[in-house]
């Protein structure tokens, strides 16, 4: 967690930027879109996406949402693939530390706003937290229907059988539903939504979450939301029910058996281990005394025997 610094007190302080970069009028426009998105769970609200000092693909949608909701007393956490210290996460955190002068943290439990790319934190979120997703492609129907006007009708009239065709194709070709990321969900029994490229492992966390979940797509200019305590159902078939990834071994560092694991190559001799993708979750567990097979010296331990893997 970085120390709270209060260099500037005025909006147009030494940075020359308005608080949180966006001008107040833009923020109000985005907030109106967010309110609409919250009022109609899972519905994609078009918004006037602004040019940001980052290229598309770097989370410009999420950044604009965060910029519009963040206040001086917020505590911001930014993750990319579960980690706080990848380039994308570091850049966005630095961006807000600079333009909004907000305090930042890596601890999920301490954050009031969490901007994320590709993961939902393992630790259960609370009602006083907001999760902001960076979304590359907001339209879940894009794969089947390239025409925008037709997509809108399909949503408007709930003609969602076509989404099932995509899952049918998976099973027909591979024997099971192979969609592992951006797994489509139905929100509040109404709109079908693309949850952004999180692993399907995270889908159940969206369901009935106490935290407000906001989704921002910069390039495609869409905002959507899951209000707190909303039903989120992952699409499936009766005879091929939705399920999440499992691993044959626990996290090599903290021993967790209930978190999303990344495979980590340890050396060029086949040494490998699985470790929590949520680095803060893993660190916190280790600080609490939990330990995994590779906790001491991953490379040394890996040479003693190949761990079983999926």
């Amino acid at each position, binding site marked *: 967690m970085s120390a709270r610094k209060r260099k500037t007190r005025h909006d147009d302080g030494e940075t020359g930027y308005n608080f949180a970069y966006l001008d107040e009028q833009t923020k109000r426009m985005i907030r109106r879109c967010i309110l609409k998105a919250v009022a109609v769970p899972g519905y994609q609200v078009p918004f006037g996406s602004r040019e940001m000092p980052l290229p598309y693909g770097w989370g410009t949608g999420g950044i604009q949402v965060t910029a519009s909701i963040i206040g001086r007393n917020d505590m911001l956490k930014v993750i990319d693939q579960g980690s706080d210290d990848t380039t994308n996460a570091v850049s966005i955190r630095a961006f807000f530390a600079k333009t909004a002068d907000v305090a930042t943290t890596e601890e999920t439990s301490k954050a009031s706003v969490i901007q994320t790319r590709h993961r939902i934190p393992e630790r259960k979120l609370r009602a006083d937290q907001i999760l902001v997703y960076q979304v590359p492609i907001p339209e879940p129907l894009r794969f089947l229907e390239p025409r925008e006007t037709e997509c809108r009708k399909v949503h408007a*009239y709930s*003609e969602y059988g076509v989404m*099932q065709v995509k899952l049918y*194709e998976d099973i027909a070709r591979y024997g099971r539903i192979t969609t592992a990321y951006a797994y489509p969900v139905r929100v509040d029994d109404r709109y079908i939504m693309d949850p952004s490229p999180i692993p399907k492992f995270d889908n159940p966390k969206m369901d009935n979450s106490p935290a407000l979940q906001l989704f921002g797509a910069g390039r495609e200019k869409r905002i959507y939301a899951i209000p707190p305590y909303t039903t989120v159902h992952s699409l499936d078939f*009766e005879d*091929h029910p939705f399920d999440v990834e499992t691993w044959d071994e626990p996290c090599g560092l903290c021993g967790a058996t209930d978190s999303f694991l990344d495979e980590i190559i340890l050396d060029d001799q086949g040494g490998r281990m699985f470790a929590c993708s949520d680095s803060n979750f893993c660190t916190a567990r280790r600080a609490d005394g939990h330990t995994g097979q590779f906790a001491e010296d991953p490379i040394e331990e890996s040479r003693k025997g190949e761990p079983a893997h999926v």
Partner: protein
Amino acid sequence: MSDDDVLLQVDGVCKNFGEIRACDNVSFELWPGEVLGIVGESGSGKTTLLNCLAGRTEPDSGLISYTNRRGEASDIFAMFEPERRMLARTDWGFVHQNPRDGLRLDITAGGNIGERLMMVGARHYGNIRGEAETWMNRVELELGRIDSLPRTFSGGMQQRLQIARNLVSGPRLIFMDEPTGGLDVSVQARLLDLLRELVRELNVAVVIVTHDLAVARLLSDRLMVMRHGAVVESGLTDQVLDDPQHAYSQLLVSSILQV
């Protein structure tokens, strides 16, 4: 479903494209299980009329009324769009001349057939697959191709697939626009036989557009001859083809006989 009710009531349908009168005051009735052929030269308005009937193009004036399974007749353009779209994927079917317009080319044959079932709520993969297999068989497509993409199919196979994809929902009314148009003569003949069998067996009503009078003779009970957007003659197929009354029908029939 009641066989006493007229299925489709068409009254004074007009559709212009700028100066062109593509449909000019077309009226007719279609009864359950009946096959109506629409013939006429290129540009006479056959496709435009078909698109109007199927709810795909709104006429400038006139009424198209469909009687649903509960016996309730309603103006298809007065109903809410989602209701019309629902009819279009359950009660009705549309077989395009070019299968590319009627198939999802990036979806397997089985997925193409299963789509309508999933659209009305089927959520059991095994059952959907079973139905797809049944329809592959019925349209004489090799079962081994159920997981192939339609783009790897021949034109005739694509047309069979398009037919299966429509019939799977048990429609009461199918619109066909030159369904054998782009096919080789030998392939055409087999497809026509298949169509005739299916239509009889399922007792589905059909409006089929063609400019091939042989196709019209083989499939349709009744025939409408169109020219410049208007119906110039209509009647039982054999009557119209063997004893055309209107000069234009006579010309049409004789020009075919000369070939």
